[in-house]
């Protein structure tokens, strides 16, 4: 039976696929509308048509990947998705950086695909079928040790696409270079398709039976969280910051998914469903607010011509709508209630604490470490976005381009408002959304969720866990709104119409303030740079130029962090390969006599060793 893709083009209609289709469309449609305003004026008419064609192909291939049921078709669409996104990353093909980013991206994703193909073919060897549901039925035919190997192949193969540390280096290179509406789809949706692969093929198809699997996932998740957010803090390229943040959030999602894997082995089906639902919730939420943030970054880029935060500032007065939407996104990603980020992180915390409660001895430490990592990450993420929002939008403009910025057209602001509204809706309506997700999780894990009750009303589980404090979401919302209105009208009544006094911003008594005295992004992140210097290995370059050796003309100061994984893993590997190749190249020196002697040597060797074959 040779693998072929004629026939057997069927779709899976289960909740997991439908969920992912929903998420894909939720982000892609606003991004597509956004691109109308974004691309206008930047590119020629021909190129815009090409951009639309690629966008539609991209979204279509992603939709196909998450819903097709034949493994060979899956690979085909998976590679098409990678190929089309490669073209979109190098869309600005004039830039050397884009091309380099594209090459790194597609090579890494290709290696990942190789691992996935190997896993699929091993599964095929034992189950003799390429249909997902049939493989699931026949999964018992695969020996346990082989299942472990397949799990690893799938985890790292899909992890390369998802951006798990240490396979994440393509993310901060590729996402910033792509046009912003594509960055939002890539960060919001495409890396989630990698997670779909992990969930579909390890949890759903193979089944999780070993504790080390869930543990490994959680360890990598925690590392991704921390590494992602630390590097995000150091960045002052707005889109690179957001890209690293995606790495962090993938880690958070995987904490939920990994936790669910561990719960399945610990024989806690209810908690497994809850944990998976938390992961899926965060997946959805991250798609929404990361998409929103990238669209915002794109608006800022289009308006100011730069992605460098150190050259922005004061945009809140010039681009109020964009700023408002970006603020909503920042609040969501920092997990501030009542927005959606808070809900999903809270649920993930709940799951982890539940895990600690259900474990004994050393295992408790493991769960607590995970909780600690998540907590640290949340704090750092908040700091990161305080920096991102305030340096970009607040204070005064740091460059002329920033001071000339104009608000974006409606086609760009409306999608952002839509997504901002969704962040609020997914936060407030959590009690309605959680049951849907638990159903999805239940179907995926093969657990019957009929008898279980999960209420986000309590923001906890009433089945098996002493409740974590009853808080009613809508009640909180109502209270906040009422309080806000009360304060507003109260102040108006007391102080009359004159509520605003316009005066100079207080600058410690100096009146000739300009942008150079403002807090820079680099300065804001300095304490973190010092604290995490074991990972970041910052170094500085200084240059002092003087008049004739005595009077200082100018002093240049640069500080850099060392990209850990690139410097210690990837670059040595790549240069070693090139060196090895150059050594092999010496085999072809141009002399026909040497070439002939190769033939002779081969014959002699084969004749001597022919018994070995």
């Amino acid at each position, binding site marked *: 039976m040779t693998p072929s893709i004629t026939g057997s083009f069927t779709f899976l209609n289960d909740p997991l696929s439908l969920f992912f289709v929903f998420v894909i469309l939720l982000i892609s449609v606003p991004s597509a509308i956004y691109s109308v305003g974004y691309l206008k004026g930047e590119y020629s008419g021909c190129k815009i048509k090409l951009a639309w064609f690629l966008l539609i192909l991209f979204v279509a291939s992603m939709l196909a990947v998450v819903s097709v049921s034949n493994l060979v078709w899956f690979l085909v669409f998976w590679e098409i998705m990678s190929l089309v996104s490669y073209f979109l990353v190098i869309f600005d093909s004039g830039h050397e950086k884009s091309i380099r980013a594209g090459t790194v991206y597609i090579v890494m994703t290709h290696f990942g695909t190789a691992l996935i193909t190997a896993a699929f073919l091993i599964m095929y060897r034992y189950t003799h079928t390429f249909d997902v549901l049939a493989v699931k039925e026949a999964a018992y035919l695969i020996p346990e040790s082989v299942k472990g190997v397949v799990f690893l192949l799938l985890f790292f193969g899909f992890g390369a696409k998802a951006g798990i540390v240490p396979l994440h280096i393509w993310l901060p290179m590729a996402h910033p270079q792509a046009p912003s509406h594509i960055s939002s789809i890539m960060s919001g949706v495409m890396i989630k398709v990698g997670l779909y692969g992990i969930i579909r093929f390890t949890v759903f198809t193979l089944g999780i039976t070993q504790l080390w699997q869930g543990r490994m996932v959680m360890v990598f998740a925690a590392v991704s969280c921390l590494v992602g957010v630390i590097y995000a803090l150091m960045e002052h390229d707005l889109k690179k910051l957001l890209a690293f943040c995606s790495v962090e959030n993938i880690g958070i999602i995987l904490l939920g998914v990994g936790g669910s894997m561990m719960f399945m082995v610990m024989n806690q089906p209810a908690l497994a469903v809850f944990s998976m639902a938390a992961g899926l919730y965060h997946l959805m939420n991250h798609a929404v607010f990361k998409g929103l943030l990238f669209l915002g970054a794109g608006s800022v880029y289009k308006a100011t011509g730069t992605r460098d935060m150190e050259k922005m500032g004061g945009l809140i007065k010039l681009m109020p709508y964009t700023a408002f939407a970006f603020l909503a996104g920042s609040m969501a990603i920092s997990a501030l209630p009542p927005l959606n980020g808070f809900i999903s992180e809270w649920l993930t915390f709940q799951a982890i604490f539940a895990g600690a409660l259900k474990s004994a001895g050393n295992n408790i430490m493991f769960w607590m470490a995970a909780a600690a990592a998540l907590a640290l990450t949340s704090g750092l993420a908040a700091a990161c976005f305080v920096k991102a929002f305030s340096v970009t939008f607040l204070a005064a403009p740091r460059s002329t381009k920033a001071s000339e910025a104009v608000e974006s057209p409606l086609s760009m602001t409306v999608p952002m408002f839509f997504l901002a509204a969704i962040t609020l809706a997914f936060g407030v309506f959590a009690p309605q959304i959680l049951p849907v997700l638990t159903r999805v999780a239940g179907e995926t894990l093969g657990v019957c969720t009929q008898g279980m009750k999960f209420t986000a009303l309590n923001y906890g589980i009433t089945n098996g866990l002493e409740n974590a404090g009853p808080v009613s979401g809508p009640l909180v919302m109502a209270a906040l709104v009422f309080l806000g209105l009360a304060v507003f009208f109260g102040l108006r009544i007391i102080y009359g119409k004159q509520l605003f006094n316009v005066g100079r911003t207080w600058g410690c008594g100096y009146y000739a303030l300009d942008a150079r005295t403002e807090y820079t992004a680099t300065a804001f992140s300095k304490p973190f740079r010092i604290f995490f210097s074991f990972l970041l290995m910052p170094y500085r370059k200084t240059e002092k130029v003087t008049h004739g050796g005595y009077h200082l003309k100018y002093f240049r100061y640069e500080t850099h962090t060392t990209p850990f994984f690139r410097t210690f893993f990837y670059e040595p590997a790549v240069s070693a390969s090139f060196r090895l190749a150059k050594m092999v190249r010496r085999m072809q020196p141009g*002399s*026909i006599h040497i070439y002939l002697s190769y033939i002779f040597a081969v014959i002699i060797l084969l*004749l001597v060793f022919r018994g070995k074959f």
Partner: protein
Amino acid sequence: MSQILTVGLLFSVFLMAGSKRLRALLRAFRFQSLMLAFLTASFALSSGDWDLWVITGMILIIKVWLIPRHLDKITAEMSSGENMGLVLNPPMSVIIVTVFGWFIYIFSDSVIGGMSGGARLNFSISFLAIFTGFFLMVFRLKALAQIIGLLVMENGVFMLASSISGGMPFIVEIAVFFDLFVLVVVAGVFVYKIKGLFTHMDVSRLTRLKG
């Protein structure tokens, strides 16, 4: 009778390895082809196959007369002189060929067992001829020496065919001869082109294409 011819062939192999100049090599080649012709004639006599007589005639015409004459002409026109460009000097070459001949003889039994003494000798000498041809191609630097090396290899193959399987089907033999002739013509044309472009015949200096 055929023993003497076999020894003669062996002798020709050593002659070639020990040749210092192109003319000597060519003469040794002629000698070898002549021995080959006689050998084939002796097979023809003993088996009475008229095919073999035709083949003897072809060897005489093509390998003893036409090809060496063609190569002589080219050598004369190439004013590169008689120098073959030796990497290994003649005595050394002869030693190497001898040693290898010994190895072939020893291993010929384990390689193809159950051969009679005479057949084994023939077999070994044919392979030695092939090896010598190879040797000439690798350790002689001039283009013409490479062509002759190729021809010596073909001689060895022919010897092999005659000795172990009584030659090949007739039509194959004819086609092989024709092929050989075309090969020499083509190679000759290229020798002229090399001389014209590079003004030297040293093939080891053709190293523009590398890597």
